[in-house]
C-alpha cells in the first residue's frame, strides 16, 4: 500500500540509473541518515556506542571491502585480516614517525599501503582459481602475521610487540568521546560505502562481475583479467586496510598482531556469506549478525531474569548463534540481503497479493 512506485515516472537516464530508484527507498535512506547523525549520538549510551556500534561500523567497512573481492570479483580470500593488519600498522607507523600528520591522510595512506600489499598477494589469482586461491591467500595471512610479530621496526621496537595509539586529532578536533568517534566513523563509512556502491555500478565493477561469472567469456568480450583481478584485490585491500586502521585507532587503542589473526579473516568471510555476497547492504547485515548478535545473546538470559552461571550462558550463546547461522543459510542461502530484497518485493503487493 505504502511501498508502491505508481506514478513515479523516470524521464531521464539519470533518474533511471540512480542508486535508489524508488522514492520511498530514498526517504527511508534519508531518514536513516538523519537518525544516525542527529538522534543516535544523543540517545545511545556509551556502552552501546563503544561496545556495539563502533565495532559494527568498522567491521561493516571491512566486510564491504571483502565483498568487493569475493562477492563481486569471485576471488576467495582467507587473508583479509592480514590486510587489516597492514592498514593498522601502516597508520600506526605514520602517526608515530610523522608527527602532526592529518589523520584523514594517515587513513588514506594506510589504505594505499594495504592496497599495494593486496595487489601483490593478488598476483597468484592470475594463475590459481577457486579453493586453491583461498589456500594461496592464507600465505598472506601467515606471512603478515609473522612479519608484524617479528620485525620490530613495524612496532617501533615495543618491548612486547604491542602498540598503542595516541588520541586522534583532526583539524584541532580531538576525537575522544564515543559519540565523536561514532560521528567520525559514520562519515568515513558512509562516504566509502557510497563510493563502493558506485564503483560496482561502474565499468570497473562490471568487469569484476564479468570475471566472476565466467573469466574466459569476460576475456573474449575484451576485459583484461589481469587488470580486473588486480584492481579488485587492490580496492578490496584498500577498504579493509582503512577498516584495520580504524579498528586500531578508534576501537582498540592498543593492539598486538593477534588482533588480526586468521579467525578475523574467517569472521569477515562469514559476514559476507551470511549477509549476502555481491551486495553492499548485505555487508552491513552480515557485520551486524556476526559482531552484534553474540553480544546480545550473551545478555538475553540475564535480561529475562534467568540466573545462569557465566559458563552456561556462554555455551548457550554459542549454541544459539550456531543454530541461527544454519537457520538463515537454510532459509536463504543467498544471505540476509536477499531476504531483504524478497521482503521488499512482498511489501509492494501487500496487502493485496494479486
Amino acid at each position, binding site marked *: 500500500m505504502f511501498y508502491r512506485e505508481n506514478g513515479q515516472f523516470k524521464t531521464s537516464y539519470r533518474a533511471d540509473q540512480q542508486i535508489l530508484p524508488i522514492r520511498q527507498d530514498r526517504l527511508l535512506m534519508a531518514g536513516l541518515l538523519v537518525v544516525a547523525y542527529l538522534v543516535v549520538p544523543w540517545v545511545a549510551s556509551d*556502552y552501546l556506542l563503544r561496545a556495539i556500534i563502533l565495532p559494527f561500523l568498522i567491521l561493516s567497512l571491512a566486510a564491504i571491502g571483502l565483498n568487493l573481492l569475493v562477492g563481486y570479483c569471485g576471488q576467495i580470500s582467507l587473508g583479509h585480516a592480514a590486510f587489516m593488519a597492514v592498514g593498522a600498522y601502516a597508520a600506526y607507523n605514520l602517526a608515530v614517525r610523522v608527527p602532526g600528520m592529518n589523520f584523514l591522510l594517515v587513513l588514506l595512506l594506510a589504505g594505499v599501503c594495504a592496497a599495494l600489499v593486496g595487489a601483490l598477494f593478488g598476483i597468484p589469482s592470475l594463475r590459481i582459481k577457486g579453493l586453491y586461491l583461498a589456500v594461496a591467500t592464507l600465505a598472506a595471512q601467515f606471512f603478515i602475521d609473522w612479519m608484524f610479530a617479528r620485525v620490530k621496526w613495524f612496532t617501533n621496537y615495543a618491548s612486547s610487540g604491542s602498540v598503542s595509539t595516541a588520541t586522534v586529532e583532526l583539524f584541532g578536533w580531538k576525537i575522544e568521546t564515543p559519540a565523536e568517534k561514532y560521528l567520525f566513523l559514520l562519515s568515513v563509512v558512509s562516504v566509502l560505502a557510497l563510493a563502493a556502491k558506485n564503483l560496482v555500478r561502474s565499468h570497473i565493477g562490471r568487469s569484476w562481475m564479468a570475471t566472476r561469472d565466467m573469466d574466459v567469456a569476460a576475456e573474449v568480450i575484451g576485459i583484461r583479467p589481469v587488470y580486473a583481478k588486480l584492481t579488485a584485490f587492490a580496492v578490496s585491500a584498500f577498504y579493509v586496510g582503512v577498516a584495520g586502521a580504524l579498528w586500531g585507532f578508534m576501537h582498540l587503542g592498543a593492539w598486538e598482531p593477534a588482533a588480526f589473526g586468521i579467525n578475523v579473516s574467517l569472521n569477515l568471510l562469514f559476514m559476507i556469506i551470511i549477509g549476502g555476497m555481491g551486495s553492499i547492504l548485505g555487508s552491513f547485515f552480515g557485520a551486524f549478525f556476526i559482531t552484534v548478535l553474540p553480544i546480545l545473546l550473551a*545478555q538475553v538470559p540475564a535480561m529475562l531474569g534467568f540466573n545462569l552461571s557465566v559458563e552456561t550462558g556462554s555455551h548457550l550463546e554459542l549454541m544459539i548463534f550456531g543454530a541461527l547461522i544454519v537457520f538463515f543459510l537454510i532459509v536463504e542461502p543467498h544471505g540476509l540481503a536477499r531476504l531483504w530484497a524478497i521482503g521488499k518485493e512482498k511489501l509492494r503487493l501487500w496487502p493485496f497479493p494479486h
Partner: protein
Amino acid sequence: MKLTGKLKLLAAAAVAAGVLASVVPQGPAYAQSKAVAKEQYFPVLVYRTGAYAPNGVPFANGYVDYLKLVNARGGINGVKLVFDECETGYATDRGVECYERMKGRNGGATVFQPLSTGITFALTDKAPGDKIPLITAGYGRADTQDGMVFKWNFPLTGTYWVAADILIQHLGKKEGGLDRLKGKKIALVYHDSPYGKEPIPLLEERSKMHGFELLQIPVTAPGVEQKSAWLQVRQARPDYVLLWGWGVMNSAALKEAQATGYPRDKMYGVWWAGAEPDVKDVGEGAKGYNALALQHGAEPNSKVAKDILRDVHGKGQGTGPKEEVGQVLYMRGLTAAMFAVEGVRRAQERYGKGKVMSAEQARWGYENLALDQKKLDGLGFAGVLRPISTSCADHMGSAWARIHTWDGAKWNFTSDWLQADDQIIKPMVKASAAKYAGEKKIAPRTVADCQA
C-alpha cells in the same frame, strides 16, 4: 506459495531481532542506580570456557570466594560487597565489551582485574578516561610499575621483568654465582603473545651483563602444537629452559620435554606456569619441574584457606569444588581479590570509614597500600605473603618471589625468598614508561598530583 513461508520466518526473525535490540539500550539503566548504591561493586572478568578455562576457573573461584568471605566477615567496615561475573574467554574484544558493560553497574565499578595481558593492554588505554583503576597482580605491562606515567595501573607484587630477573638470579645461585652463567645457554620457550614477549627485554639485558646466550623459541597460541619448538631445544641443548606458557601450553611443554628427554629439573616456569592444572595431567613426568611462586604457592594450610572452608564452603556458599581451595591458582585469585578489597579499606581510612568508595577514591587506596605483616597475618595470610606497600612512584609494592618444585603430587617450596634487582629494573621501567608517555602524548604526573 513457498515464499510466504519464508516471509513468515523472516518476520519472526525480524521480531526476534527487534526484541534483542530493545533489550540493549537498557545498559544505561544500571548507571542510573548510582545515587542509591550502598554497596561496593566489584566486577569480575572471568574465563570459564575456552582454551584457558582450566586455569581461569580456579582463579575466578578464588576471587569470588574471597569476596564472599569478606561479606561473611561483615564487609569492609560494614560496607557489603556486590559482584558479578562476565565471561571473556581470554579474548581481548570480549574483555573490552565486558568492561564497557560492567563499568557503570551498581553505582560504578571499583576496580578491574582482567587476568589477561591482551585485555590489560586494551584497558590500560581506556581506564584513565573512565577513571577506573586496574589491578594486574603478577601480569600486564612491566612498565606500568611507574605510577608517574601509569596513574591507573597497579601490577601489584610483581611484573614479568621481576619474574625474569628472579629466575636468572636463582639460576646464578645454583651455578654458584651469577658470573658462572657466562657461556651458558638459556632458552626461553614462550607463548607468542605480548604475555610471552614481555620478559625478553630484561633477559636480553641480563644476558649482556652475564654473558649467557639467550635462545628465543616462540610457541604459537594456544600452544598445543610444540613439536618444532622442542626440536629446537633438542638441537640447541640449552642448560636451562624458561617456560613462559599459559593454559594448555604448559602441560603440552612438559609432555614434549618428557618425549624429548629434556630434564624437567632444568625447566623453570613463570608463576603462570606453575600451578596444579599445568602438571596434573603429566603427573610423575613433571617431577622435578620448577616454577616461580608469586609470593604464595599452594597454601591449603593457610588460615585464610581454612576460613574460606569454614565460612564460605561450610555454609554451602562455595563457588567451586572444596578440593580446589588452597591450590595455586585459587590462591592467586584469592590474593588478587584481597588486594582489591584492602585498597578500598585503605581508601576508607582517608575518605570515611563505612562509606562506599568511588573508583577514584579506591585508586588512592591502591596507591597507598600499606599491608604490613601484622595486617596480613590478621587477614589470614601469614606465611603466604610478605608486606606490600605502594607509592606514587612504585605501583608494584613488592618484588619478592620464591621457587617451588613439583614432586609428582604437590608443589613444595625449594628456595628462599628472592628479590628482583631494582638497579636493573628501575631504569628499564623508567625508559619504557617514558617512551609510552611520548607515544601517547601524555604528560607525567606532577608531584602535587601525587600528594592529592
